[in-house]
């Protein structure tokens, strides 16, 4: 089975689903790819690995670390071995994400209007009102086409039973899509012909689909609507993504100081005077968007933007206030929402989640903390998180104390053992844990998910944290056609 040296050295881990190797050897979706690379000499693989790094650097696909006071350009680590998903599995994922998004979108409309879900007692009102991302300012605001979740980057993981679980919905400002696009463009340069031979479905349509959806939100009867991408600026770690997306869609990349609100309309300051803005794809968080409505010390937003939005004079993508559906405590109610709003059974599984506000569950979690992941309900990026199996007694005590002080802000989940996939590291294939973030676009004409996504890799041996801010890398993600 593993005749050649590259594959022979690969050690699978017990109790972990490996994406490439099953009990009977190489999984069918990987056979073509493995056939193509198994006879390559190690030196050639290393050359490919180096070429990939060189391409990332020379194309400036970097993020900047400002910790030392001066910018240092770093590349987001990329592993050359693709992660491959078979067609049938993708259809399942696609249907599952669409279903979730539809339910979550209705939930947001409901929670900011009539609140049937609270009145019917499905979701405790206290959970919603205690969520810091629940924006009272959004009550009874009608958003264009009733769409809140225009862009979602749903995080999926695969447990050792081979099933996909939804970990987070990321309905605010999910990032990483530029890496999905760039990873693909690097792959076809280092593995010529492999993409067509494997019938890999293209991801290149993402910017066009997004732009089409953004244009459709412009309310004006105007063939020449202005769509802008609002970025916090060059010091933001995702600035590369902002400028890439703006360039691919051919829209202006603006910062808060480029915009001005006059008489409840939004304008951008150009050398030719003020120009009206119709749609803002913002990559700035809710609380920084408008210093008059939210954080008064924000310099990233635009004064008066909230009222312009409320009056329907500008469309904002994603809608404000989505964080309430992203809250990790609300997350556990999504299957219920799907049944309640859609009258369907959830297609994708969710991870069992224990609310720390419940004293019984809290006791249960405290008694087996080494088998739990404890997360803050409103944080992301791998911050504010404790993985019980890897934590010291001291860290656990700190979390216990923090949970008792503010139980609403924590949830616990049993540790899911993320699936592993081979990575080409230091000249050998080594198993590393991965997740999958497909990007879903919800527009007036429906939900589109480009077949692919960002596969994030925990590059530390044995680590379960894939976030790029915590030393994660990424892989190209191939979704095979029929």
């Amino acid at each position: 089975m593993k005749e050649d040296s590259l594959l022979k050295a690969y050690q699978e881990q017990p109790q972990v689903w490996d994406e490439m190797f099953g009990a009977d050897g190489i999984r069918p979706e990987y056979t073509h790819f493995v056939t193509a690379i198994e006879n390559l000499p190690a030196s050639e693989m290393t050359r490919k690995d180096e070429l990939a790094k060189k391409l990332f650097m020379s194309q400036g696909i970097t993020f900047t670390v400002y910790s030392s006071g001066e910018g240092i350009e770093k590349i987001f680590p990329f592993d050359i071995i693709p992660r491959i998903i078979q067609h049938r599995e993708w259809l399942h994922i696609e249907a599952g994400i669409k279903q979730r998004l539809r339910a979550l979108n209705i939930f947001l409309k409901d929670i900011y209007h009539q609140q049937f879900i609270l009145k019917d007692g499905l979701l405790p009102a206290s959970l919603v009102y205690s969520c810091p991302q629940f924006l009272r300012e959004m009550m009874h605001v009608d958003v264009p086409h009733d769409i809140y979740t225009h862009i979602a980057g749903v995080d999926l993981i695969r447990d050792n039973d081979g099933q996909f679980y939804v970990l987070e919905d990321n309905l605010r400002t999910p990032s990483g899509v530029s890496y999905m696009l760039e990873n693909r463009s690097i792959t076809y340069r280092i593995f010529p012909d492999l993409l067509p031979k494997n019938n890999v479905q293209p991801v290149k349509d993402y910017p066009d689909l997004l732009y089409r959806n953004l244009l459709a939100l412009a309310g004006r009867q105007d063939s020449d609507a202005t769509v802008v991408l609002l970025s916090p600026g060059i010091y933001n770690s995702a600035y590369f993504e902002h400028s890439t997306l703006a360039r691919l869609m051919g829209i202006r990349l603006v910062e808060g100081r480029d915009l001005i609100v006059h008489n409840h309309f939004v304008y951008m300051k150009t050398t030719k005077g003020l120009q009206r803005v119709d749609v803002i794809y913002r990559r700035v968080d809710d609380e920084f968007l408008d210093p008059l409505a939210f954080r008064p010390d924000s310099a990233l937003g635009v004064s008066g933007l909230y009222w312009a939005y409320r009056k329907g004079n500008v469309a904002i993508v994603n809608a404000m206030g989505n964080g309430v559906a992203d809250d990790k405590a609300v997350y556990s109610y999504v299957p219920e929402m799907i049944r309640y709003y859609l009258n369907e059974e959830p297609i994708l599984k969710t991870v069992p989640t224990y609310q720390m506000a419940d004293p019984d569950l809290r006791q249960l979690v405290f008694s087996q903390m080494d088998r739990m992941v404890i997360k803050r309900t409103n944080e992301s990026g791998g911050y504010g998180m404790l993985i019980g199996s890897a934590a010291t007694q001291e860290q656990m005590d700190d979390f216990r104390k923090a949970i008792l002080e503010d139980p609403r802000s924590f949830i616990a989940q049993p540790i899911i053992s993320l699936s592993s996939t081979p990575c080409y590291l230091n000249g050998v294939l080594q198993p590393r844990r991965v997740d999958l973030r497909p990007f879903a676009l919800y527009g007036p004409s429906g939900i589109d998910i480009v077949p692919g996504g960002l596969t994030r890799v925990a590059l530390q041996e044995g680590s379960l944290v894939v976030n790029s801010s915590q030393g994660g890398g990424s892989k190209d993600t191939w979704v095979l056609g029929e």
Partner: protein
Amino acid sequence: MLSRVADTIYWLARYMERTQSMLQVIRTNYIASQNEIYDFNWRPFLQLYGDLTPDELAQLDGHSTPILTHLVLDRNNGASAYRNILQGRENARAVQDHITKEVWQSLNDFYHVIRDPEVGQQITHEDPISGLDALLRQALLYAGTVQHTMPRDEGYAYLGIGKCLERAIQTTDILRVRWATVKEHAVHPLDAPALRYLLYSLVGYEQYIKTYKGTFNTENVLQFIVYNTQFPHALLYSLDQLAYYFGRLQPESLPESHAHVAFLIGKVRTAVRYSRLSAQEPEQLTSFLLQTRQQLLDVASALNTSYFGYN
């Protein structure tokens, strides 16, 4: 074009022109300080390109290494060449989609050269001329890359405006500061060294001796630096170019904004063209240069309000 983007591009050009100009001045000064032909003083330039207190200035007198370090490499001196290059590169990063990849890469390279310990070592401990030459070469590379790769669009016009405005200000400053040393010797008609260093600072020495067949006198040098429209660092040439680049912006401007700034550019250009300066009247020259400088700053602030959205 977004006001912020235009502003960023314009300042990118100003930072780079300023860097080129100050490196040339520092190189010339260093050579002058070594030749010791006349009583040489770094102070006017330390004041121009730094923020030292009089006490600190006094400590530096006669010590080339700390002076060069302060002017070229000091990361804490907001006016050092290092900081100018850093700023220029940051600006380029922020408007990467409006400049060519080649321009971005030339600035990125420039930044890496000034951070190169080898170049730092040359400037501080070995042969400062070699170190400064390595930096000047990068400045020329940037200028050539802009000329060769940039599309002739609005962004290019802002690069041109920034460059010419900064060059006009630099020429005014260098002439004024250097003339102070010339002035003392004005009674000697052939006080060549000071005039020679003035021309070197403006990269005009070779052109001057070709134009005037090797005759040095204060009157000719002054005419050359202020009025010669074939000398690329001459004040009038820079202003003509400024007017040209600004004229290109007309279709992209609000009519009233364009008229306002064009008026101010025309005013300073006309004032220079129809002036009658004489080397024999140094005080009149100084006040004329200060007045011109002020008018150039007025153009800059009119651009700020009419084009770059400063209110």
